């Protein structure tokens, strides 16, 4: 996708709509998308993966070969659909317009070269992807990209800052940032030889992280950053796995290593799929989405659930060389950390976490995000280290009926069964009108000793998500203090008592 002299850059975007947007860092989705990319690669070798679910290529060359942009778009749609993936293809000037074109119409749109700004004009300003501008511009009476593009560029820059100037470029149909026309004065690619060839994926990924750090250091020393990074892996039998990944100067060394992992795993799955007549290992929605089972990516692949363990090994004689090539070098104008995560992960911490992940599997090291919810177990989302994900339930909602502070220090992932009886030994029950049969007098958690209840509070009835039969829940909660001084959070649901948490 080099900048061509004269005339705008024509970009074709392939977008798979049923890929979840948050598939960004969820392994299975990213690995499966590799299959789509391989099919698109048959049309043009230079494919750039924007995110799992979307990739782009320069349309000019392939369009001439395949008989026009419409023909190329149709052929790609047919090829991808034939493997069972829904797909939309858009062609326009520049990446931003092409992405919007892919979302237009029933299966994407080909926007003629001279029509790009006219195509962009009716889109709302929210398409720019900036929450701040999407809020501010309509209040100033600017509702569409056309109206925004009509402002003088210099005025947009001085009124809305660097972000506004960039958005104005997009609205005009220009590219996100001008390409650096200066060729790199030095070879900034980094590579590592493996001798003997490495058969397992994990050491390669581990090495990729160190390589990425070297590449970033080399770029930083020259004040540059790269828009894309090309990952090349060579096998002992001469095969080459090459893939371009969107970088934009935002990927950490760990994130680059993660993309190497997807590339190896996805390519492996693709090889197997080809050998077995086009079997798709994973399709969006088919296996529970990106939250599917976390596979332990152990170095020996043991412990992986049925049939997938071989994905972690590299066949064809192993990897002999791994090379990272920064592509499209631009001046590093800094990045805003606040947008991309709350805490900066130091390399020392990241190294420790990756090493533990190599021992125990990707999902074994998690970072918690506080989420919303009524019961304590709902109020946290655990995200595997290296992934980015939003909490399952937003924390900033009021959540009426939530268990009040202070929060319990112990939250059982699987609630303990409990027996709670009154002073005559009968199980305490709660009626539909939230009346307690008798004050709870004794509590026995998980078959443990029977403890006397000294004080208690409740019932706090909860009827959750009654509109969704699969997720609906009707229960009543109690807080109990036993004579050993411990406090418990118990819930009674359909006559059964469970201990959800304890206030240790």
């Amino acid at each position: 996708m080099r900048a061509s002299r004269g005339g705008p850059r024509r970009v074709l975007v392939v977008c798979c709509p049923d890929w979840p947007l948050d598939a960004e860092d969820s392994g299975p989705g990213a690995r499966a998308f590799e299959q789509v990319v391989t099919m698109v690669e048959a049309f043009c070798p230079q494919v750039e993966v924007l995110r799992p679910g979307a990739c782009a290529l320069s349309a000019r060359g392939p369009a001439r070969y395949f008989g026009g942009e419409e023909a190329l778009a149709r052929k790609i749609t047919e090829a991808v659909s034939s493997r069972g993936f829904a797909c939309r293809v858009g062609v326009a000037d520049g990446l931003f317009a092409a992405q919007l074109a892919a979302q237009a119409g029933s299966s994407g749109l080909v926007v003629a070269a001279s029509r790009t700004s006219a195509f962009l004009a009716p889109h709302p300003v929210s398409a720019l992807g900036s929450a701040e501008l999407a809020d501010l511009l309509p209040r100033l009476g600017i509702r569409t990209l056309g109206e925004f593009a009509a402002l003088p560029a210099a005025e947009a820059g001085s009124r809305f800052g660097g972000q506004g100037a960039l958005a104005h470029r997009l609205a005009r149909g220009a590219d996100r940032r001008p390409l650096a026309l200066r060729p790199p004065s030095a070879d900034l690619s980094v590579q590592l030889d493996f001798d003997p060839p490495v058969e397992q994926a994990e050491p390669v990924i581990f090495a990729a992280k160190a390589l990425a750090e070297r590449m970033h250091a080399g770029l930083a020393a020259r004040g540059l950053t790269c828009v894309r990074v090309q990952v090349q892996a060579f096998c002992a039998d001469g095969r080459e796995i090459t893939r371009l990944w969107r970088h934009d100067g935002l990927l950490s060394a760990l994130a680059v290593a993660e993309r190497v992992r997807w590339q190896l795993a996805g390519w492996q799955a693709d090889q197997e799929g080809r050998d077995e007549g086009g079997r798709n290992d994973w399709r969006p929605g088919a296996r529970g989405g990106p939250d599917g089972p976390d596979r332990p990516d152990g170095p020996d692949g043991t412990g992986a659930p049925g049939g997938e363990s071989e994905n972690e090994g590299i066949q064809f004689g192993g990897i002999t060389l791994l090379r990272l090539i920064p592509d499209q070098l631009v001046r590093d104008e800094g990045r805003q950390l606040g947008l991309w995560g709350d805490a900066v992960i130091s390399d020392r911490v990241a190294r420790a976490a990756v090493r533990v992940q190599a021992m125990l599997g990707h999902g074994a090291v998690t970072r918690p995000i506080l989420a919303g919810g009524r019961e304590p177990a709902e109020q946290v989302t655990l995200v595997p280290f290296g992934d980015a994900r939003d909490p399952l339930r937003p924390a900033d909602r009021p959540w009426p009926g939530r268990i009040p502070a202070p929060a319990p220090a112990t939250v059982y992932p699987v609630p303990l069964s409990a027996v709670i009886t009154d002073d005559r030994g009968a199980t305490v029950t709660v009626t539909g009108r939230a009346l307690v049969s008798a004050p709870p007098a004794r509590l026995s958690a998980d078959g443990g000793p029977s403890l006397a209840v000294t004080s208690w509070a409740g019932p706090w009835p909860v009827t959750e998500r009654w509109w969704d039969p699969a997720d609906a829940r009707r229960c009543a909660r109690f807080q109990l203090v036993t004579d050993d001084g411990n406090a418990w959070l118990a819930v009674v649901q359909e006559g059964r008592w469970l201990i959800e948490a304890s206030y240790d």
Partner: protein
Amino acid sequence: MGETAQVRAASYGQRDDDAVPGDGVLPVLPALRELLPAGGLQRGSVVTTGRWSLLCLALAAGASVAGAWCAIAGVPRLGVRAAADAGLDPGRMLLIAEPGTHWPQVMVSLLDGCELVLLRPPARPSAQVRRKLEAVIRRRGSVLVVAGDWDGAQSRLFLADQEWVGIGAGHGRLQARRVRVVADGRGAAARPRAQWLWLPGPDGSVTRLAAGEPAGADWEGEAEQARLARHGVSVGWRRELAPGELRVSSGLTAGMSAG
């Protein structure tokens, strides 16, 4: 073990003058400062807290506030909300719920990367494992907080008494817990220290009982009432109330009546 422990204890003893948390010490919450001889968690040391409880999290909170990364291993039942309320930053937490059978190796990696590691050992560590991990801790200057037993730990903290406030017989709710934390250890930490704390307080934070506040069974109805009036908290006691003492009332804002 004995000789090295003595040498270590002696070297830590020299740092006791350094009451202000400095480079050699990870800060702790102000409420816990007086329980630890160095005024914080001595880098390169092991601290045990008996069974898993909010005390472990409270010990880690001060360092997390100061910017340290905290790894928590072997606690699948961690209440993250409680940890956050106690002061730990969830953004700087690594959770390893099941460190597995090779947990000593996992611990070596974690101690390498994080300044503070909370561990609930899956099995009782052998002397060899302990020595190996203690060597890593000393080399990296990290701190290991163990929820369980660890022979040769420099400091030992445990909950001696606990009493929940705010809940009655069928009314109120758990609002705060008054605990007495006792600390002892080796060398300079050998003299037992005790401290009454709100663990947690009404908002989940960890604070010391103020000087005027009653501690445990010594409390007087009036003093308690004055404190509660300040906090707007209703109260119920685990033990039986004597006539004339504070009556249990329900609801957060319900008034108090002194008999």
